[in-house]
Every structure is written in C-alpha cells, then in structure tokens.
C-alpha cells in the first residue's frame, strides 16, 4: 500500500496534464459560445466529483451512526438491500419516469448505493468511517467551491449575468452551505462525541437536499439541461475529453482524500498514544 501512493500521485499528474491538453487543444471549439465553453471540462468533472464525495460522506455517516448498536446495524443492512432492490424494480415498473431519467441510470444509482454501503462496511472499521466522512467532506467542499467559482465565470459571458436563483445553482450553493456548517461544527465542537453530532448533521443535510431541489424546481430553471443522460446531445469528441477530465479529477480527489485520511489517522493514533502514556505515567509526576 505504501508504494501505491506515489504511483497514484504520478498517475494523477500525468492524467491532469493530459486532460488539460485535451481540454485546451484537442476538444473542438463550441459553435455559439466559443472558447468560453472549455470551462465546462473543469466545471462538470468538479461537480460530479464533489457530489460523489458528499454521497460517500453521507454513506459513511449513516454507517457510523448505525454501527453504534448491533441491532440497528442489522436493520440498516436489510433496509439498504431493500432500497437497492426497490430502485432496480421501480426503474422498470414505474412509468413514466420523471423527465431526464432513464431506467438504466436509475438502476446504476440503486446498485451504487448498495455497492458503496457494503464496500465501506467491509473495508472501514467504525472509527475509520468517521475519518472517511471527515476527509470526503473537506475535499468535497473544495471541489464544490471550484464548481461555484467556475459557474459564474462561464455564466457572465454566456447568460450575461453572474448568478441566477436557478435550481441547480441554488441546490449546489445550499449543499455547499450545509457542508461548510458541517466542517464548522467539527471544528468548534468541544464534545468527545463530535463524530456522532457530525454524522447526525450529515444525515439531516442529505434529507434536506431533495427538498431544496423541489422547492427551487418550482421556479423556471435556466441552467442548461444536463447534456449526459438528460436528453441533450454532445459531440463525441467533447464527451471523450470530458470523461478523461473526470477521470483525472477523480484520481486527484482520491489522492488528496487518501493523503488527508492518512494524516488524520496518524493524528488520532498519536493522540491515543499520548493519552495512554499519560495514564501509565507514575503518580509522582502529578504531585
């Protein structure tokens, strides 16, 4: 495992530079928007990465909460299995699906939920799920900030405005706010049970996101419909560049998360050792 980290680092550097070359040189010029459109190759991969990280944070937080008691853990396993099965069946039974959703994408989501849940359950112990939740939230906020900065930069020349209270923009902003408050809670908490409080807040945030989405969806939306899986069309070459960019961003995110994860684990190990040493020290030194 120790050798894998530098290998991933080199791979990420190569991928990122190749993706940059593709985005600036190889990708065709967009007909109406011109070169401004190239920001899309950073905006969209960052958004996908941020949402994926927040999703992992949510799964890790749920795991942390349910693993406190063995019986809730058991119930949660069955509930997750049921959610996976129901989404797969529902994708083909429910007709018509909301606009922009295909049965295959719904099935993928269902399998992803179950897959992530059990993968994290298998490979992370209870304290480790908390470290995972912390690192994914931190890195997710960074990627979400990139999305919120590149969005207006693109919107100004194309829409003529920096910002609009549209459904995707606002949901992303609210998601960012929720996760910033999550990080603030972790920083300011004086309790020894910070992980529990933070995990509860993460669950509340996840409950909030669909409600935010629906509340703003009621207004007319201005953001371009998703070009992938949303009924839009995209040039094959552009899609290729986009996916390479996503791969590069994803491996960058994994690299940063990994390094942050190792740091946090080391920090907790040191704290634990210091606490143990303080207990074992002879009484005389205390006076």
């Amino acid at each position, binding site marked *: 495992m120790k050798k894998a980290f530098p290998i991933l680092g080199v791979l990420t550097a190569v991928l990122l530079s190749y993706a940059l070359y593709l985005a600036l040189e190889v990708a065709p010029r967009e007909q109406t928007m011109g070169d401004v459109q190239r920001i899309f190759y950073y905006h969209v991969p960052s958004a996908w990465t941020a949402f994926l990280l927040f999703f992992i944070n949510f799964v890790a937080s749920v795991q942390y*909460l349910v693993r*406190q008691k063995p019986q809730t853990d058991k119930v949660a396993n069955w509930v997750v299995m049921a959610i996976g099965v129901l989404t797969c069946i529902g994708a083909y039974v429910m007709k018509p699906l909301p606009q922009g959703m295909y049965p295959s994408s719904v099935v993928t989501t269902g399998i992803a939920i179950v897959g992530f849940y059990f993968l994290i359950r298998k490979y992370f112990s209870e304290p480790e799920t908390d470290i995972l939740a912390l690192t994914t939230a931190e890195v997710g906020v960074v990627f979400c900030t990139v999305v919120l900065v590149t969005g207006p930069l693109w919107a100004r020349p194309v829409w003529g405005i920096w910002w609009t209270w549209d459904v995707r923009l606002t949901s992303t902003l*609210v998601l960012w*706010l*929720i996760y*910033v*408050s999550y990080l*603030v*809670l972790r920083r*300011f*908490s*004086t*309790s*020894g*049970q*910070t992980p*529990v*409080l933070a995990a*509860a*807040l993460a*669950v*509340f*945030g996840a*409950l*909030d996101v669909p*409600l*935010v989405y*629906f*509340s*703003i969806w*009621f207004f007319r939306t201005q953001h371009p419909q998703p070009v992938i899986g949303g009924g839009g069309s995209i040039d094959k070459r552009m899609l290729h560049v986009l996916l390479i960019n996503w791969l590069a961003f994803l491996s960058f995110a994994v690299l940063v998360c990994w390094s942050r994860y190792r740091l946090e684990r080391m920090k907790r190990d040191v704290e634990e050792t210091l606490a143990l040493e303080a207990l074992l020290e002879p009484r005389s030194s205390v006076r």
Partner: protein
Amino acid sequence: MSAPTGITLATLTKDIRLEWRSKDAINSMLFFALLVVVVFSFSFDPNAEESRVIAGGLVWVAFLFAAVVALNQTWARELRNQVLDAYRVSPAPANSLFLAKAMGNFIFVAVLEALMTPLFIMFYKLHALGPAWQLIPVAILGTWAIVVNGTFFAAMSLRTRSREIMLPLLLFPITIPALLSMVEATTTILVGDPSTSAKFWIVLLATYDVVFTTGCLALFETVLHAE
C-alpha cells in the same frame, strides 16, 4: 403510552411556568422582532403595493431571527445544576423530552407571532388580496419547521464553543427550503395573483415538517447522549 405523554406534559408545563414567571425568552424575542420591524420599515418606507411583495420575506426573516433567541435558551437553561445530566441518566424516553421542548418553543414563537402580526399589518399597511385563511396553515407549519429543527440543533450546539453563534450556523442552511416555502406562500397569498396558488408551498412545508420531525425523533436520543 401514558408514561411518555405524562413526561412530555410535565416538562412542557414546567417550561411554560418558568417562562410565565421569568419572561426571559419572550421579552427578548418581542423586543428583537420589534426592532427588525421598525428598522426595515423606515429603511424601505414602502407603499402598500411594494410592501405586499416584500412583507412575506421580512415577516419570516424577523420571526426566524427572533426564534433563535428562544431556541438558544431551551437547553442552556437545563445546564444549570446539571439538570440535563439528570435527564440523561433517568429512564424517561429522550423523545418525550424533545417533544416537550419543541412544543414549548412552538408556543413561545406562536405567541410572538400573534403579538407581532398586528404591528406588521400596521407598519406595512398590509391587506391580503388572496385567500387570507391560507396564512394560518402556512404559519402553523412554518413555525413548526423552524422550531423542530431549532430545538434539535440547539441540543447539538450545546457541546460547542460559542454555542449562541453555532445554532444559526447549523439551522439556517437546513431551513432554506422551509423558509423559501413560507416566504413564497405568504407573498402569493398577499399578492393574490389568480394564476398562482400557495398550495404547492403548503404541501412542501408539510413534507418538510414530516421528514424532519421523523429525523429529529430518530436521532435525538443519540445526540442527547453524545457527551
């Protein structure tokens, strides 16, 4: 079922009696909301047409900020003499305590709203053009939305440095959909445009209330015992 409701009622009456005698929360809330009304009123100085459009936002933002004052005192009051620790070790179910606290806050904020609404009508020359009775479900559901999450996050922010600041930081991002629904519903009713209806927002508020009341009841015990 009788024992948990008994505990809820006992805690609720205790809180109301305490508030009735001290009037700590209600006085500071009232004064705060009054200040907001006055400051906004003379900084905008709207006529009847303009105020119809902005009043929904002003009213609910004022009530939200004022509610934070009461919410901050909910649990801080129990820290004196280690009352909260006594709750933790007692066999009383945590959720009946939570419900009592949430209902108590609901009553305080409802009293505040009942007292402040006439002032708002007076200062902003308000007159609803739509079906005014719909404001009642909006007020009830909206107040519960603020109060149920507020009570939960107040318990969460007990264990943080500078907890008075922490509560709004946690509460406001989560409350955004509820606040948006309350403001939009109120504005729709006040403006009375026949092509739009406040029903969607009322349903959304009700959904928000159901989702977060369930969430709070499911997680409150864990948060209460996290020390």
